[in-house]
């Protein structure tokens, strides 16, 4: 019997601590109201390494995540610590399939200045990862960038902006997300 996709899978890819993954999972459950499963760690996505750039192609990671997706997975979020790029941008914090199934985020650029303590894993990195996870998953539900500076769907120019916004949706984006969520589940059942 076919199983309805209803879980959001968090897939660790490399050196990401359990505390981060649990915090991300909790935040996703809170924001989307869907159960989250943390998959086994798949290790560094070496298949996506661009030797010339010494960065990892987020598109290739997304492709592989989708290829390996569990049948009951409604959305899949890859979480890695490597530096991501896509074919057009010099780097990305994360990338999502707009109205699609997969997203990937990285802690690499979210650590900010290596001289400060966040590299050691103090709360700002957890908070940034949570926001980035909700933001990219929001895109998979068809949400676009929001002009509300507090909303998690606002596009942040730099980490300072990212730190200023909240890790949840503004009322308008939340309504839109719930509407998309209903449509999404309805279509995939």
């Amino acid at each position: 019997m076919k199983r309805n996709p209803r879980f959001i899978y968090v897939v660790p890819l490399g050196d990401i601590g359990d505390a981060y993954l649990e915090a991300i999972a909790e935040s996703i459950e809170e924001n989307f109201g869907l159960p989250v499963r943390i998959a086994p760690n798949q290790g560094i996505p070496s298949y996506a390494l661009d030797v010339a750039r010494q960065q990892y192609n987020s598109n290739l990671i997304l492709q592989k995540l989708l290829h390996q997706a569990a049948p009951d997975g409604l959305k899949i979020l890859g979480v890695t610590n490597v530096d991501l790029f896509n074919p057009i941008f010099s780097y990305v914090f994360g990338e999502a399939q707009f109205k699609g199934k997969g997203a990937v985020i990285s802690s690499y650029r979210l650590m900010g200045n290596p001289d400060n303590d966040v590299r050691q894993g103090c709360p700002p990195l957890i908070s940034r990862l949570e926001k980035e996870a909700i933001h990219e998953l929001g895109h998979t539900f068809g949400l676009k960038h929001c002009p509300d500076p507090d909303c998690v769907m606002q596009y942040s120019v730099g980490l300072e902006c990212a730190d200023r916004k909240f890790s949840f949706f503004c009322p308008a984006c939340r309504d839109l997300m719930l509407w998309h969520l209903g449509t999404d589940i309805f279509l995939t059942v």
Partner: protein
Amino acid sequence: MKEDARILVVDDEPMVCLALSNWLEEENYFARAVEDGPKAVAAVREENWDIVLLDLRMPGMDGMEVLKQLKEIAPQTVVIMMTAYASIPGAVQAMKEGAYDYIVKPLDVDQLTLMLNRIVEHQQLITENILLRKRLTEQYEFEDIIGRSEPMQQVFEMIRAVTDTNATVLITGETGTGKELVARAIHSNSPQRYGPFVATSCGALPDTLLESELFGYEKGAFTGADRTKKGRFELANGGTIFLDEVGDISMKTQIKLLRVLQERSFRRLGGTDPIEIDVRLISATNRDLVTAIEKGAFRSDLYYRLNVVTIHLPPLRERKEDIPILAAHFINKYNVEFHKNFDRVDRKAMDFMLDYHWPGNVRELENVIERAIVIDQGPEVKIGHLPFCNMEMVPMEEPQTLEEIERLHIEKMLTRNDWNIAKTARLLKIDRTTLHKKIKKFGLERRQ
């Protein structure tokens, strides 16, 4: 406002096209990508774009050549060159040719975001400025519609009232009153203005052809459908569809149209999947739809759907005070087109124009002025240029003899040339003395 900004991506790498247009969509822009120069030029010819992100190095027509053509077709469109580090001098050269700025690939997402935000804000200011100036200086004009008369001022008010809404509009009026101009004016001032404006004349097409024209068809839907074709509704998505002569459509097509208006979706002929559309509908008719409903030729439910807001355009004979400014407008228009120097309408000609009933309305007036400017050098539009004057002067009975024809022809030519003997003689290819003799012989006199 950001949703209104339309961005065209031009890059020969499909991955760049896809990734960049996806990102722009996420950023709330309307984006489309094309993979070569000729397609970019065609896209800019077909639609308005606020910003073009243009790759400098492309096979065939390169970015520099595309830039030159874009600047000729749409000088107001902002072009940002995308370039690799090695081609920065080329990008700098492009800025001398009119590019707004350049950005190095791979792109810095923050830099691109700030650049686009800055351009959109700047363009909004320019648009607001233009609109304000227009309102101040051109109170008798709305887009290409001219009129100082009370009925036309009311029409302008109605247009302004509906532009900010998405309301369905029905424009009524006799043929030649400018219904399509009103539809275009509403579109170009509405939130849909960056979307396409697709006009269809429903009366010009037979029923079956109209259906496939409006809704499109799937490959194999009927004999001859060798490919899938998008209909006018699909082409107008995100913009405005203008259905002219809507009173002429058959009952069958009326039902389909009603369904589109109710459900905001339709199926192509031979298709099974519903296609959702976001289109503003403006329709027009020169028929009395209420009478058509009474006779059972038009569905009342469709009428009420189309007729959310009605704008009635008065016939020209009911707004004769607009004739002088309309004539001046068309003189200016055709002076430019035909490189002539007409500057006025002769007083007598204007009297005739004000007396005439203008069955073809503004379109007929425009044709009269155009014809005068084409056939003569100016500087005045005279009685002889007015075809309806000549028609009225021609006797009802056809002339029988050569002499009668000669008399009528000489009289017509004299009138047309405002009794300028030398000019008329030259055109008749006779000398002035002969012309004088003939005037005397036929007893011709200049009418006052």
